């Protein structure tokens, strides 16, 4: 953070280095191998006493001189220039550490120039052995240049003991020095053959042409075995984690690794083809093609080497961002803009946020990413993200993207960077707080003097989300049920479960999954409770976005006489935050539902990280259902036993991007935000200031609990997901209780012990022991009246309130007791009991005043 950053957009991401370096590396290896080629070709001419061959060698020497001196040395200077412009800090380290290696290389460069000029300009004027001696001196000095540069380049990839002792020799003779030297030497010989083929195929005399083409082809074929062997040695010399990174973990490397392995047999085959007699035109074309292929071959190798080094420019010492690894933590706590020398915006406020983001981009991203350019274009890569989504992504970027360094700035700086990229470059914004008009519902009448029945209905799923694109991807299919209990009022009220029919009718404007079916039907009795069959509900009515469809339930006797009517909401919390990071729009008003573009991005991301082929399968018409592979107790889906269950997998992965964010992390994906369109967490606990984490724990604990369960099941893949998650309720991972999704959940009684006011507002790591212990299955002391009948759905406990106002979420209390409190609160037993009640029933302390009215 010492130097100014040359602000490049299109040319950012190291494009200029690549343009110069890939070309230079090819020529410079030619300059080494070509030297040996010249002397051995000249020796052949003299041995065979063949003046035609000698004339060819002389011509080739001129070609060699022009190529290596003009293109080679100028592009070599170019590399010096460009690396100091794009990464001055790393260049400075290389210069200061290896100054005498560079200086020695300069000496050999000088010898190269003198000897090459002498070799070419004395061609035919000197006794041949003496002339060849000059050629040998040239080759020796060129190879020594390779020897010296190889030490420095190898140091960047495998600095070895230099990291500990800072010793010149440790860095120079680093772990990959020798294999790399041999690898490059054999590569240089092959390249010499490739260039030789180009000049040889231009020889007019057919006999001489085939002689020299075969001679050149041998330069491809003979060193090849040694080249391959040294390649394996080179690979084996790399630290295991580096090998894994290059050959297994980085999908972006695949193209170059495949390219390299594909080019090898093609080059050999090309060499063999040319060794047979081909028409001149064809052999010329093939020679030029092979030369270009050689450039690609070299390019692939250099990309693999450079790419494998990422996220470092000097491995384990300096990141590609020029930040020393030892400084990363300090910059995270102190902030980068304040620490870097060449910044204008050292403090971030609302007015300079974008400008500061640009400065952070220059410091942290520009070295590897272009804006609208060909090198890892940041706009394309971040197109799916909203500013807050990108902020989350950046916070965990290094965990699964092994080529990325950790973000080395403060949290505020991370936000500014995300804003600059996602909003400034891509024009995306975070969803703004929703202003929805309060939904008014006509409350059914209830006369406590005359009405004999109380009908109670609720949704057993409080914040059950919907995430499905029909025919493409189903994460959570739309579906909800209502449950109801009919109570006959009296001195001893009775739960009625026979001789009555309960029916339901969705409010106008909503339709079923096929978008035609009217949502109405009969509720089926299940002992004391009536339930709708699971219905696919959608959040869009003819009136627009509405996550809380109102359902009217009626109870009639066998003579179809209406006994009771009530209303309840059947929540459709479809406000998934997938589009924060997976692109597309969030459905209606950019807020709810899963769009096709989002689903495609999710599938593509899954394929990229898990080496699956879901996207092509989906595009070919096969709908992807997550539960097909990942077990999900909610849907009784067994999944593939070897894989993580769906909750563990999703939370385990995404938690790495949402660490340290409290309840905000939950609202990234779930409809729990109090300012969200759904405001799904709408019960009394929200009103008293609690949030998701008070009951569920922070995202780290939440994910770790799920992952620990899978770990106990012997699923080793959890280790990678858990590696960067630190428990937030405890210092020890062992204290995180393993849990199974949808079964081991928080429960009211964990805080409200014995139905008493809670002594704490937070209980984490304590879960229901089995499915039957869940709130939605719990009944009162009689074992017949469901808790939810009087208290409502999970996350909507009375008195519940959100953007829709207090009425919508407390329809039945308002109907039966003209207040939004739990039914029977403040000793209002008269809702069901026609005589005054003095004894506690249903649960302990029921006769107490409601505390949070």
């Amino acid at each position, binding site marked *: 953070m010492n130097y100014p950053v040359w602000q490049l957009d299109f040319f950012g991401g190291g494009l200029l280095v690549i343009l110069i370096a890939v070309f230079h590396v090819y020529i410079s290896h030619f300059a080494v191998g070509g030297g040996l080629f010249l002397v051995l070709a000249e020796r052949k001419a003299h041995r065979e006493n063949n003046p035609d061959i000698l004339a060819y060698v002389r011509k080739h020497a001129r070609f060699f001189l022009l190529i290596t001196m003009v293109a080679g040395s100028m592009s070599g200077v170019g590399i010096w220039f460009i690396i100091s412009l794009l990464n001055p800090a790393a260049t*400075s380290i290389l210069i200061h550490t290896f100054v005498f290696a560079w200086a020695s290389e300069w000496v050999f460069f000088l010898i190269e120039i003198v000897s090459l000029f002498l070799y070419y300009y004395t061609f035919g004027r000197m006794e041949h052995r003496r002339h060849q001696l000059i050629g040998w001196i040239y080759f020796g000095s060129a190879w020594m240049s390779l020897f010296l540069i190889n030490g420095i380049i190898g140091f960047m990839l495998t600095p070895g003991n230099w990291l500990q002792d800072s010793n010149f020799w440790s860095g120079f003779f680093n772990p990959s020095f020798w294999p790399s030297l041999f690898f490059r030497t054999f590569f240089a010989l092959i390249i010499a053959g490739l260039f030789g083929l180009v000049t040889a195929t231009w020889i007019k005399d057919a006999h001489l042409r085939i002689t020299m083409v075969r001679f050149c082809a041998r330069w491809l074929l003979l060193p090849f075995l040694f080249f391959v062997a040294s390649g394996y040695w080179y690979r084996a010399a790399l630290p295991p984690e580096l090998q894994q990174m290059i050959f297994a973990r980085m999908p972006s490397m695949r193209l170059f690794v495949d390219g390299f392995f594909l080019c090898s047999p093609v080059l050999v085959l090309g060499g063999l083809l040319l060794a047979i007699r081909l028409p001149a035109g064809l052999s010329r074309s093939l020679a030029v093609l092979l030369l270009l292929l050689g450039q690609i071959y070299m390019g692939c190798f250099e990309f693999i080497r450079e790419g494998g080094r990422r996220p470092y420019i000097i491995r384990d010492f300096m990141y590609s961002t020029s930040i020393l690894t030892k400084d990363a933590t300090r910059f995270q706590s102190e902030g980068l803009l304040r620490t870097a020398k060449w910044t204008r915006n050292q403090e971030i406020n609302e007015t300079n946020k974008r400008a500061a983001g640009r400065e952070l981009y220059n410091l942290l991203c520009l070295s590897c990413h272009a804006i609208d350019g060909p090198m890892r274009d940041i706009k394309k890569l971040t197109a799916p993200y909203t500013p807050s989504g990108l902020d989350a992504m950046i916070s965990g970027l290094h965990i699964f993207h092994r080529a990325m360094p950790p973000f080395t700035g403060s949290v505020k700086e991370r936000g500014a960077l995300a804003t600059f990229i996602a909003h400034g470059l891509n024009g995306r914004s975070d969803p703004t707080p929703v202003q929805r008009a309060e939904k008014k519902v006509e409350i059914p009448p209830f006369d406590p003097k005359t009405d004999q029945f109380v009908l109670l209905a609720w949704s057993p799923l409080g914040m059950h989300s919907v995430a499905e694109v029909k025919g493409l991807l189903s994460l959570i299919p739309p579906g909800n049920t209502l449950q109801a209990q009919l109570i006959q009022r009296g001195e001893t009220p009775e739960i009625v479960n026979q001789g009555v029919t309960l029916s339901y009718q969705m409010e106008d404007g909503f339709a079923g999954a096929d978008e035609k079916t009217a949502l109405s039907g009969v509720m089926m009795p299940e002992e004391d409770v009536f339930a709708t069959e699971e219905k696919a509900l959608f959040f869009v009515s003819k009136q627009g976005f509405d996550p809380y469809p109102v359902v009217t339930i009626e109870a009639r006797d066998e003579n179809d006489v209406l006994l009771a009517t009530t209303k309840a909401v059947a929540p459709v919390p479809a406000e998934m935050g997938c589009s924060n990071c997976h692109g597309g729009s969030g459905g209606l008003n950019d807020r709810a539902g899963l769009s096709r573009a989002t689903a495609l991005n999710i599938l593509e991301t899954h394929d990229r990280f898990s080496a699956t082929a879901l996207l092509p399968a989906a595009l070919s018409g096969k709908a992807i259902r997550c539960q097909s592979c990942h077990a999900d107790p909610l849907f009784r889906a067994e999944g593939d036993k070897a894989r993580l269950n769906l909750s563990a997998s999703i939370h385990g992965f995404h938690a790495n991007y949402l660490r340290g964010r409290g309840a905000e992390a939950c609202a990234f994906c779930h409809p729990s935000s109090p300012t969200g369109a759904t405001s799904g967490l709408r019960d009394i606990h929200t009103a008293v200031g609690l949030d998701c984490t008070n009951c569920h724990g922070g995202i780290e604990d939440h994910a770790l609990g799920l992952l620990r369960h899978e770990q106990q099941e012997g699923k080793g893949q959890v280790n990678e997901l858990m590696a960067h998650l630190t428990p937030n309720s405890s210092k020890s991972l062992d204290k995180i209780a393993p849990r199974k999704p949808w079964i081991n959940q928080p429960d009211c009684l964990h805080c409200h012990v014995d139905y008493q006011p809670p002594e704490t507002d937070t209980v984490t790591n304590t879960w229901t022991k089995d499915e039957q212990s869940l709130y939605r299955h719990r009944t009162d002391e009689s074992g017949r009246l469901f808790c939810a009948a009087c208290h409502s759905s999970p996350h909507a406990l009375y008195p519940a309130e959100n953007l829709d106002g207090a009425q919508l979420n407390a329809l039945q209390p308002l109907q039966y007791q003209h207040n939004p409190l739990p039914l029977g609160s403040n000793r209002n037993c008269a809702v069901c009991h026609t005589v005054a009640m003095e004894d506690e029933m249903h649960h302990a302390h029921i006769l107490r005043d409601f505390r949070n009215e």
Partner: protein
Amino acid sequence: MDSAALIPTPDAIPVSWGWFQFFLLLTFFLHILLMNVMLGTAFIAFVSHFRRKAQTTPCTEVISGNLPFAIAFAVNFGVAPLLFVQVLFGHFIYASSILMAVFWLSIVALLAGAYALAYVYKYRYAQLGSSQLLVSGLITLLLLAIAFFFANNISMMQAPTSWTRFFDQPHGLLLNLADPMLLPRYLHFMVSAVAVGGLAIALFFHWKQKKGDQGAGPWVTYGCRWFSYATMLNFAIGLWFLVALPKEILTTSTATGLLLLVTLGGGIVLAAPAIIFGLASRVMPAIVCILATVALMILARSLLRTALLAPWFSVSQLPMSPAYSPLFFFLVFLVAGLALIVWMIRFARRSCTEEGEVHL
């Protein structure tokens, strides 16, 4: 914005700064001579092509034949001082290079273009005909542009107060045109190049003359005249440069100031007889005088940098992390390499038979 706060923190050097200063001055001296020969002879060739062909062909042909060598060696000898300047002043020159990155990087393309054209000029000299003027003009123009960018970078690296402009122009498009020293400095170097180029032509034909070439005499005079007139002109430009220097630099109250005055004075004093020798076509004495002048001027240039950077930095402040064994190996390579080069040249000269005869 405080310019001092922008100066990057330097990395540690492995041996005492004096070594690097020595190598920097030595290799820069060699580089500047070769650069002068390259640019000066290219310029002279270009101007010569305005005259009637027959009058100048012997000279321009020689220049065309040798220009690629001059470029090759000028570049090679430019690498070493660029390396050593990065060791001592990397934190200044990296910053200034980035500020003018577009121009700085364009040097590579300009140089490659000039080099390629030099080979065209050499190998297609006869075929070029009247296009010789165009090609030599282009080469000269490219080399002059490169030199201008170099002068800008050196000017900017020595003036951290000019760096704050980066915040309004971060695209690498800054030059330091506001520096009053820039233009006289650039012209001083360029006219020197023409002078030394002239002298190089004179020296070449002087050798030919010594080998018995009867027609070489006028070209010795031709080269010497270029040298002398250019050097005379350089007195005036040098005076302009002197006037443009910050007043506080030229002082006897500091060691740097005093040394600067002494080296400048020595250089000026030695340049006068060089002109006279040049006018008298006495090549070798002129060369001796001008080599001494160039050496003194390079010292003066280094002292000027020391003085300009004094408020910000001194090489003696560089942290050191001692590692002498690599220096030892470099010295061995350097001595052995130079010996090998000398041996090779002598070996080649001894071994060469008459031109055109091919040994099989």
